[in-house]
């Protein structure tokens, strides 16, 4: 059973690779055009823009989620009242779909009806927050919405990491008179490496699969300003019937993912083996 199902994985992958080397448009053809589709792909301005968007998005999204998630975890770990309620509040967005949450954010960020409109009606006439309709800034609104959705996950992972840290450490640090923030930064943060790397992998997978949120929030617009690779591939597969080009794009995406994740996973499993985990 495992073999056939995995065969399906490998076969589909090989099939996509093969199609990416043909001139297929609506239907796959048997001809062989070498790397022609890849050349066309990298002359396609929209594809280049989508790659650039993904890089910017990945950097901002992952950094923001890790920082916010870490801060939330640390602050929640200070024996605050209502901890359970706060955890619930921070994590519930993760249970919801990107389609649903994207739509809400689209509305909150809508210049006429959302935050900007409300502020102006309250008398702040010059208040401007129209990122979602401006080409240069639209990508940041996707970052805001998806950070809102995913940072609770980082919080939960890091919090369970923090709870696993020996209380002796805190006693020792207090006796030595080391300020708390210093302990967090120099001692606790490195100790959280397993939780952090788990969080990083999860976030990275989300970045690569980024599609629903863009469709729900901006449909890739205005213009093509918030285009991302996953959406580019979908458009060329089904909308523009250019299967060869779309296949080439998905192979490029896959190779990029492997190039980043494989060394990371390797290092991580080596580290886990060494620590006997």
């Amino acid at each position, binding site marked *: *059973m*495992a073999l056939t*199902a*995995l065969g*399906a994985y490998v076969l*589909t*992958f090989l099939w*996509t690779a093969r*199609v990416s080397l043909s001139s297929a448009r609506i239907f796959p053809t048997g001809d062989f055009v070498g790397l022609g589709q890849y050349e066309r792909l990298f002359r396609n301005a929209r594809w280049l823009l989508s790659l650039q968007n993904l890089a910017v998005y990945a950097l901002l999204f992952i950094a923001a989620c890790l920082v*916010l998630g870490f801060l939330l975890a640390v602050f929640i770990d*200070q*024996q*605050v009242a209502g901890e*359970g309620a*706060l955890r619930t*509040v*921070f*994590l519930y*967005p993760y*249970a*919801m*779909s*990107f389609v*649903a949450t994207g*739509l*809400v954010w689209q*509305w*909150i960020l809508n210049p006429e*009806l*959302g935050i900007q409109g*409300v502020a102006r009606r*309250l008398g702040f006439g010059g208040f401007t927050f129209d990122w979602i309709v401006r080409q240069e800034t639209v990508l940041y609104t996707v970052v805001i919405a998806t950070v*809102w959705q995913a940072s*609770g*996950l980082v919080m*939960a992972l890091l*919090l*369970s990491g923090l*709870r696993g840290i020996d209380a*002796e450490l805190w006693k020792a640090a207090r006796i030595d008179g080391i300020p708390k923030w210093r302990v967090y930064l120099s001692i606790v943060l490195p100790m959280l490496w397993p939780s952090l790397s788990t969080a990083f992998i*999860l976030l990275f*997978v989300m970045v690569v699969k980024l*599609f*629903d949120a863009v*469709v*729900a929030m901006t449909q890739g617009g205005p213009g093509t300003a918030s285009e991302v*690779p996953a959406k580019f*591939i*979908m458009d060329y*597969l089904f909308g523009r019937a250019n*299967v060869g080009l779309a296949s080439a*794009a*998905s*192979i490029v995406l*896959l190779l990029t*993912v*492997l190039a980043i*994740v494989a060394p990371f*996973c390797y290092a991580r499993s080596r580290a*886990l083996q060494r620590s006997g985990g």
Partner: protein
Amino acid sequence: MAVLPPAARVRPRKPLLTPARLGIYAFLLTAALFFLVPLYVMLVTSVKPMAEIRLGNIFALPLAPTFEPWRNAWQAACTGLECEGIRGGFWNSVKITVPSVLLSIAIGAVNGYALSFWRPRGANALFAVLMIGAFVPGQVLLYPLVRALAAAGLYSSLPGIVLVHLVFGMPMMTLLFRNYYAALPQELFMAARIDGGGFWRIFYSLMLPMSAPVMAVAAIMQVTNIWNDFLLGLVFAGSDNLPMTVQLNNIINTTTGERLYNVNMAATLLTSLVPLALYFFSGRWFVRGIASGAVKG
């Protein structure tokens, strides 16, 4: 959620209101506000009549609350050409999610069991493919799967979309069960072998009864994943089986006429009810589920 080690509980409580404590609470409350605003906006908007929405601001409380938008979203909103609300999508999502979750857990359990105890030849290669499979952008597999399902006559059908969910869920499910079984003592398995247990006998009588915790984790992961799926439903389900998420997107992005924000928000909430309920009722299991979602080892 994480279990508090006993040592952490006895950490002495700090005095209540130092400036530092105020800072902590200020940060947490601001963050909580940021996380709650969309939910609040969804809730209040979904019970406002359109007249109030046109005039007022999105953060204002409803003056004349009405459940009309909820009724509309459920049974009258237009999801594309049809105007029967989102209830059809709800049942489609149920029809897709239930068999997909049950089957993918069953397959994951058997795969994980085979990989961790029987170690068939090529197990390592299989494992490597699985690892990659967990990271593959879905787009790489989409088109071949469309062609394969079309050839098998399953494209745009319920069995077709279930099959696709099985294929996409398999790497994660197999890894999850493999990691769980790999942590069980090997002696247990050896003893069962000596007693003459075969592949399936050991699985049914020994492994399954011990699998309850990992089953719960797997179920939570798969229910949220499959219920919230948009891409696969869009491509593979066919117009008769569109899941709720796809219908929701159609409702919201209908371009004709005035945007019925109250109906949209009610539909959004309806679509989110199942995963939210799962999250609220399963608490720490939910967290354990997403934590296991990361590939270990």
